[in-house]
């Protein structure tokens, strides 16, 4: 096999991995704080992409330059989707705060189905073309033909988001409160942390990055329908479990591993079974290392 082909697969895997990472962050952060797999998370990604599409169409009538359309429509979509995430938590999860974990999980699945069908009814079941809003950036000479401008934007954006998020979690008061809450919720309230506020912020941040992923990948693939969030969501969930659910670096690592695996497996083995590999990984990781690559094994102190 020639080396260029390998590199193309590598960068294609990196692209997928970046998008999974933006999504997986939300799963892992929410799990870390309230021990819930938020199955409606993929829908936020889809709604983010849809909102940006609608806003871009609206703004394009004003004759603005493309870059302004991109920035404005993305901004609206990101804020709108974060508000969605915030509201979903308040409506579907907060009332069940003291209920068994299974009830909340079922509520999450219900929310996911509801949002999918709502978008199906409000929009259409067909694939819609997605405008390529991303600006052209120069591709380094030696990578021409291997990677395109959009991929460069996707990597850079993801990297910037990861760095900002790491700084936020590590150094800000809210970040420290999040870590404390995920480690011991009762003790967190005993030092005066407003746990509801922490949970709300977690949903806001997770929804923001998910919507960002949705906008980026839709601009890259050029199409969208109401169902894109489901499969992407499940795969990002696999990535989060692979990396160790609850661990933020784990989610990023798991996403990159998953993206690469899918890309190489599709490129060298068969692209027909592309989606199968994610689930093979899920089964293997659950059998052999249930706590994930970077996850901490659940210890129970007596």
């Amino acid at each position: 096999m020639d080396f260029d082909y390998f590199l193309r697969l590598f960068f294609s895997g990196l692209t997928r991995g970046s998008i999974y990472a933006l999504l997986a962050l939300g799963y892992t952060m929410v799990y870390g704080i309230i021990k819930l797999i938020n199955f409606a998370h993929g829908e936020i990604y889809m709604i983010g992409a849809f909102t940006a599409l609608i806003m871009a169409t609206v703004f394009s009538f004003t004759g603005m330059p493309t870059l302004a359309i991109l920035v404005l429509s993305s901004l609206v979509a990101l804020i709108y989707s974060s508000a969605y995430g915030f509201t979903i938590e308040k409506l579907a999860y907060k009332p069940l705060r003291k209920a068994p974990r299974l009830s909340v999980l079922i509520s999450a699945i219900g929310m996911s189905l509801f949002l999918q069908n709502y978008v199906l009814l409000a929009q259409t079941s067909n694939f819609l073309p997605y405008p390529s809003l991303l600006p052209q950036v120069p591709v380094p000479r030696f990578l021409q033909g291997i990677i395109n401008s959009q991929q460069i934007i996707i990597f850079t954006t993801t990297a910037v988001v990861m760095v900002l998020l790491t700084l936020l979690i590590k150094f800000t008061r809210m970040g420290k409160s999040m870590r404390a809450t995920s480690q011991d919720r009762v003790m967190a309230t005993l030092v005066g942390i407003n746990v509801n506020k922490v949970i709300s912020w977690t949903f806001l941040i997770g929804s923001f990055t998910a919507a960002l992923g949705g906008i980026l990948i839709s601009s890259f693939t050029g199409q969208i329908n109401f169902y894109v969030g489901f499969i992407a969501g499940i795969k990002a969930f696999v990535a989060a479990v692979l990396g160790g659910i609850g661990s933020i670096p784990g989610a990023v690592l798991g996403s990159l591993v998953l993206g690469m695996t899918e890309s190489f497996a599709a490129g060298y083995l068969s692209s027909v079974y592309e989606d199968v590999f994610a689930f093979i990984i899920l089964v293997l990781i659950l059998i052999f290392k249930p706590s994930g690559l970077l996850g901490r094994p659940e210890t129970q102190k007596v």
Partner: protein
Amino acid sequence: MLELQSVSTYYGNIQALKEISLTIEKGEIITLIGANGAGKSTTLMSISGVVPPRDGDVIFQGESIMGMDAAEVVAQGICQVPEGRRIFPHLTVQENLDMGALLRSDREGIRTDLNYVFSLFPILAERRGQAGGTLSGGEQQMLAISRAIMARPKLLLLDEPSLGLAPLIVQQIFEIIKQINQENGTTIFLVEQNANQALKVAHRGYVMENGRITLADSAANLLSNQEVKNAYLGV
């Protein structure tokens, strides 16, 4: 300063506290002693708002704090060092202390208190950058107490600070409790199974059995009380 007026607390249908009444005056060290399962920790959790009482009233500085959630109670100036210490295991010692001062914004005061806890427990200064979970039991207890001091509480609730610690460390912890009370005038409510030690540092004490307060007296009197001796002092 703090008054519980016939407080009853339930876990589901099980009544854990049966009309508990007690008072704590400013500047006192009050201890609550009793056997396992008597309801001592529940009393503290009821005050802190983690397990809200169903009946009765909790008055702090003349105002009811019943129904406040735990974070609001902390904001009122009541801090708890819970049973089992509950150090945030993956935060560093420094970050654990920062969490204690979460609700404060007076940088100067925070720095003073940080130096103060490091003077009480110099070992914590050495271990500043280490994850809380890697400390020994005694060091974790020191950190837990320090974390609470960082909030500069008016009332400090301590739940079994001596549990599972070596006798020498227990001695040291009780010395510090006394010191905090004398130097800062912090009012302390101390829940203990180690009745002997607790009664030695406390001004007054309450004895709890099966969710009820059965005895209330000065610490000195309780130490010489025959029933208390038989039941809790192992003499």
